[in-house]
């Protein structure tokens, strides 16, 4: 049942990604509706899958790499839908769904076994720390998508060639504000994730900070996003620079999330 839900979710996301790319190049109202439907249906199945695992395991299903990449993708789509209430940027999903699909594909290749939780992880911090961390990461993932859109649109306006995606992308101001909005959403979550992580580390291992590679890279991300916010308020760094920085910021998030897993074995080895 759980596998079935996961595979079905994957199929819907794959279809949404393909329609999203078609939408980008041959945008018509109908493709945009189909894409949104596919994302929505996939999201519903995905939610069911997460609830199913929660009930089966008896705790939040973010305890192995399969579960965390899946939850990461789920959070991205959750925030994407929340954004649609205020900003009408459906086309953002064309840029974000490939990221979601990659996360889900890597998740699908990892062990899906539900194993008993090691005693170190059995804590209320598990839910608090991981949910906060992934919601923050999801906001940054969307900021990455918006930043990419900004750079494309900026290129059109600067180079004075208005073909391509010019007509379909939102205005520069909208994209810039959206980027800022997402980072102001992600930054406090990242800060909280680092704080709750160190509190948890203290209660599990007896020390707040152990220079574990993921801790280091999270700190790097934190500094990049802090710079974006600070420079915007003080020096008015907006637009292109903010877009480039938010793309860079998300790359450090990906390093913290994937790179470390592949290269090292730190404390976060379970995730």
């Amino acid at each position, binding site marked *: 049942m759980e596998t079935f839900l996961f595979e079905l979710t994957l199929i819907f996301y794959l279809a949404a990604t393909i329609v999203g790319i078609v939408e980008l190049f041959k945008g018509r109202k109908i493709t945009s509706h189909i894409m949104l439907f596919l994302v929505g249906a996939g999201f519903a199945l995905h939610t069911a899958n997460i609830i199913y695992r929660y009930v089966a395991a008896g705790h939040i299903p973010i305890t192995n790499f399969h579960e965390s990449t899946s939850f990461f993708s789920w959070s991205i789509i959750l925030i994407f839908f929340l954004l649609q209430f205020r900003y009408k940027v459906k086309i953002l999903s064309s840029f974000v769904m490939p990221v979601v699909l990659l996360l889900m594909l890597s998740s699908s290749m990892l062990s899906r076994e539900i194993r008993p939780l090691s005693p170190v992880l059995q804590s209320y911090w598990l839910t608090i720390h991981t949910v906060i961390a992934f919601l923050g990461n999801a906001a940054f993932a969307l900021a990455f998508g918006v930043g990419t859109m900004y750079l494309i*649109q900026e290129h*059109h*306006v*600067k180079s*004075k*060639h*208005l*073909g391509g995606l*010019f*007509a379909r*992308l*939102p*205005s*520069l*101001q*909208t994209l*810039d*504000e959206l980027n800022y909005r997402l980072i102001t959403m992600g930054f406090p979550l990242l800060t909280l994730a680092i704080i709750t992580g160190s509190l948890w580390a203290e209660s599990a291992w007896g020390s707040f900070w152990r220079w574990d590679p993921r801790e280091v890279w999270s700190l790097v991300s934190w500094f990049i996003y802090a710079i974006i916010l600070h420079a915007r308020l003080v*020096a*008015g*760094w*907006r*637009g*292109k*620079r903010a877009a480039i920085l938010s793309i860079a910021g998300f790359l450090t998030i990906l390093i913290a999330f994937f790179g470390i897993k592949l290269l090292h074995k730190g404390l976060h080895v379970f995730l």
Partner: protein
Amino acid sequence: MKVLVAGLNHNTADIEVREKVAFNGSKLQEGLVELKNLPHVDEVVILSTCNRMELYAGVKDTEKASESIKTFISGFHNIDRSLLDKAIYVYDDVDAVRHIFRVASSLDSMVIGEPQILGQLKEAFEFALEKKTTGILLNKLMKKAISVAKRVRSETRIAENAVSISFAAVELARKIFTDLSAKVFMLLGAGEMAELAAKHLMSNGVKEVIVANRRYERACELAKEFSGRPVALDNFLREMVHSDIVICSTGAPNYIVVKEQMQKVMKERKQRQVFIIDISVPRNIDPKINDLDNVYLYNIDDLQGIVDENMFERKKEAEKAERIIEEEIEPFFQWLSSLDSVPTIVALREKMEKIKNDEIEKLLNRFPDLDEKQRKAIEYMASSIVNKLIHPPTIALKKDSEDRDLIVAIIKKLYDIDDEEKE
């Protein structure tokens, strides 16, 4: 019945000729009624716009009809016949239908893809419908033309993208800013083109307008026109700090803003985006300013370049539209030719029914003693023989085959039917 188009447009006639033959105001109704009463014209629609005057007619004899239409126009509008003959074009049959589809789809317009023509065509048709000068042919044709135009618009991108400098500027502004009505405009200097662009940009509302001019009185005048605030030209740099859209068109012979000055302005406005349109020739804004982040500078050639690109795109889309039109012509003529066989089928049936009724009557007169049941049986038999006899020719007439015209002709000859008189 055949379709006939007679008319002239911006390509074949100057404005002097076009205004002479226009059907304005009450002339439209008079013209329709008089045309409808012409001997060779059965149905008529008049399309009269600033760029074209066209008559769409349903006729039997195209030669005679076009002659009488030309005579009518020259008489009605009191225009010299030789002048008219030079400008007028006449299409019939497939060419006429193609022309009407192209006009409706805005392929024949001065600016390809402009949207007004379809509305004008609809109005022209509705007016003719109201005055009862149309019939089965033009009703079908006009509805078809409207649906073809809609298909063209939804399946091609012929009406997308701005094809005038002012609209290109608006399109750009909308892709730089979220909401133009929350923006501050500055008009630097004045010129016809600058004012036009400003009017288009401000048509959706504006937060504030600042007008700077070398002559302060002129600034005041313009400020009144745009309900803005006049400032002296010496102060414009300070005002640029809170201006989001700047339209510049002064007569200055050199750059009035250079990169370093703009850098300072951007720093003060915290790098918020600014859109500068330099319409002046020679240019008044240093082109290097476009290299600054969040500054988008367009001069007249840049805007013209965008218009040209968009125009080129439209022409490419127009080729797709032409293909759609060719696809739609065929079904229309299929419908038209089916029309011809219907009266024949009706006439054939009527003829047979008459024979049947006559023969039954004769028989019953000869045998008055037949009872009700027997009479019914005879009537039933006669009806079923007639039905079985007409069935195959009816099917042949209805069938959509290439030689249907021939079948129609043969059946008419064989059964001695002449449906022309009935019309």
